C-alpha cells in the first residue's frame, strides 16, 4: 500500500459543500435531492474536523446552487461552507443562511396539525433564527430545534 490516506480527488468545475456535521450528511443529500442527479458526486463522511469532531463533505461536478436552494440545508448543517469551483480554482465561498420561510423540509411538531394528517406540504415562518424556532403556517404552533424532524 503506497498511501494510507484517503484521497478525495479535486473537481474541475462544480460545488464543494464542506463542514457538514457527519450525522447530517444524508439529510443534506435528501434535502438537496442529490440522489436524483446524474453527474459525478463524491461523498466523504466521518472525516476529522476541528469544528465538528467529524464532518461530512460533498463534491459535485458541474452542479451549482441557487442561494434559495442551498439555504434549505441550513437547518441541518448551519455551519456548512460552499466552495464554487471553476477550472480547479475556488472562485467563490459562501455560507448558508436560515431562510425566512421553510417549505416541505420540517415536520410540524404538533400531532393535531393538519399537515400530519393529510398530504399538505409543510410550511413554516422562521420566528427566531438563532434558536431556530419555526411557526407553522397552518396550526400556528412552534416547532423548535430540539423537536425538529426532517421529512
Amino acid at each position, binding site marked *: 500500500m503506497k498511501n494510507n490516506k484517503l484521497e478525495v480527488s479535486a473537481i474541475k468545475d462544480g460545488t464543494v459543500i464542506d463542514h457538514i456535521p457527519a450525522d447530517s450528511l444524508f439529510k443534506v443529500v435528501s434535502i438537496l435531492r442529490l440522489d436524483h442527479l446524474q453527474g459525478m458526486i463524491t461523498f466523504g463522511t466521518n472525516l476529522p474536523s476541528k469544528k465538528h469532531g467529524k464532518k461530512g463533505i460533498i463534491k459535485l461536478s458541474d452542479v451549482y446552487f441557487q442561494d434559495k436552494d442551498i439555504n434549505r440545508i441550513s437547518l441541518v448543517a448551519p455551519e456548512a461552507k460552499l466552495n464554487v469551483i471553476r477550472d480547479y480554482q475556488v472562485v467563490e465561498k459562501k455560507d448558508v443562511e436560515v431562510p425566512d420561510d421553510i417549505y416541505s423540509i420540517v415536520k410540524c411538531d404538533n400531532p*393535531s396539525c393538519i399537515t400530519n394528517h393529510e398530504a*399538505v406540504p409543510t410550511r413554516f415562518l422562521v420566528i427566531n433564527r438563532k434558536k431556530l424556532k419555526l411557526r407553522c403556517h397552518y396550526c*400556528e404552533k412552534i416547532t423548535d430545534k430540539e423537536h425538529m424532524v426532517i421529512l
Partner: protein
Amino acid sequence: MKNKSLVTITDFSKEEYLRILEVAAEFEANSYQNLLNGQVVGVLFFEPSTRTRLSFESAINRLGGRVIGFTDSATSSVTKGETLNDTIRVVTNYCELIVMRHPLEGSVRYASEIANVPVINAGDGSNQHPTQTLLDLYSIQKTQGKLNDLNIFLVGDLKYGRTVHSLLMALSEFNATFYFISPDELRMPDEYKMYLEELGLKYYESTELDDNMKNADIIYMTRVQKERFSDPIEYERTKNAYVLKNHMLEGTRDNMRVLHPLPRVNEIHTSVDSNPKAYYFQQTENGVYVRQAIIALMLGLK
C-alpha cells in the same frame, strides 16, 4: 374584506374590526335583511357544536341565504375516507361562502387555500376561533361605549384558552390594560406577555380573584378544565379559586360586565346570572349580528 377569508383574528386589521362592529350594529337594529337573496352558504362542521353552528345558521337565514352542509363528519363522506382536500374542492362548487369547523389545527387555513370562495373559521381544534373574538369585541364596545383604555381581566385557563389569546391580540390594538388571573400551571404564555411588552402595554398577573376586581371594566371568565392539570390534587385545590360568585361582584364598577365564551361548567355560580353585570347570555345574541356583518362584508353586500 370582500372575498378575503377569515382564519385568524390577525387576518383583519383594526379598521376592519371596527367596520365589522359598525355593520353588526346595523344588523342589531334591523336583523332581517334579504341581502343573500337565496345565495347558498356551505356550513361544514366536522365536529359537533351547538352555539357556533346555530348562530351562523341563524345569521345566514336572517340574511335570506340558504344553508347546505353537515353537522358532524359522521354524516359526510369523511367516513368513507375522503380527504379534506377533496371535500373542499367539491363543496366550493356548491356555494358562495364556506363556514367551517374542524378538529385539526390548521385545517381551515388549508381549506382557504384550496377553496375558490371565502372561508370563515368557526374553530380549528385548539387553534383559532376569530368570530368569537369579534363578538367579544362587539359585546365590550356595546357595554362600555368604547374599546379604548379598558381594564380587562382574563380569568381561568390562560395557557390553553384560544379565546383569551385571540381577544388579547385584538384588544392590544386598543390600549387595554390586562389582568391575568390564573393558577400557576395555566398562566398566560410568555410569547403573549412579550408581545404586550413590545407594544408598551401594561399587564398584571395574579393567582387570585380578589380586591383587584374593583378596577375591572370587563371580567372575561373561561373554563378551568381538569384534564389541563398534571396533578389532580392541584386541580382540586385550585378549582374553587376561579369560581365567580355573586357576592364577589359587590364594589365592582357600575359599568363592569362579566363575559364568558360558554359553555360554562361551574366557574360562574348560577347566582350571578340574575346580576345585571352578568352579560354572557346577551353575548351569544351579539354573535348572530356579528356573524351577519362578517358574512355580508366578505361577500361584498355591505
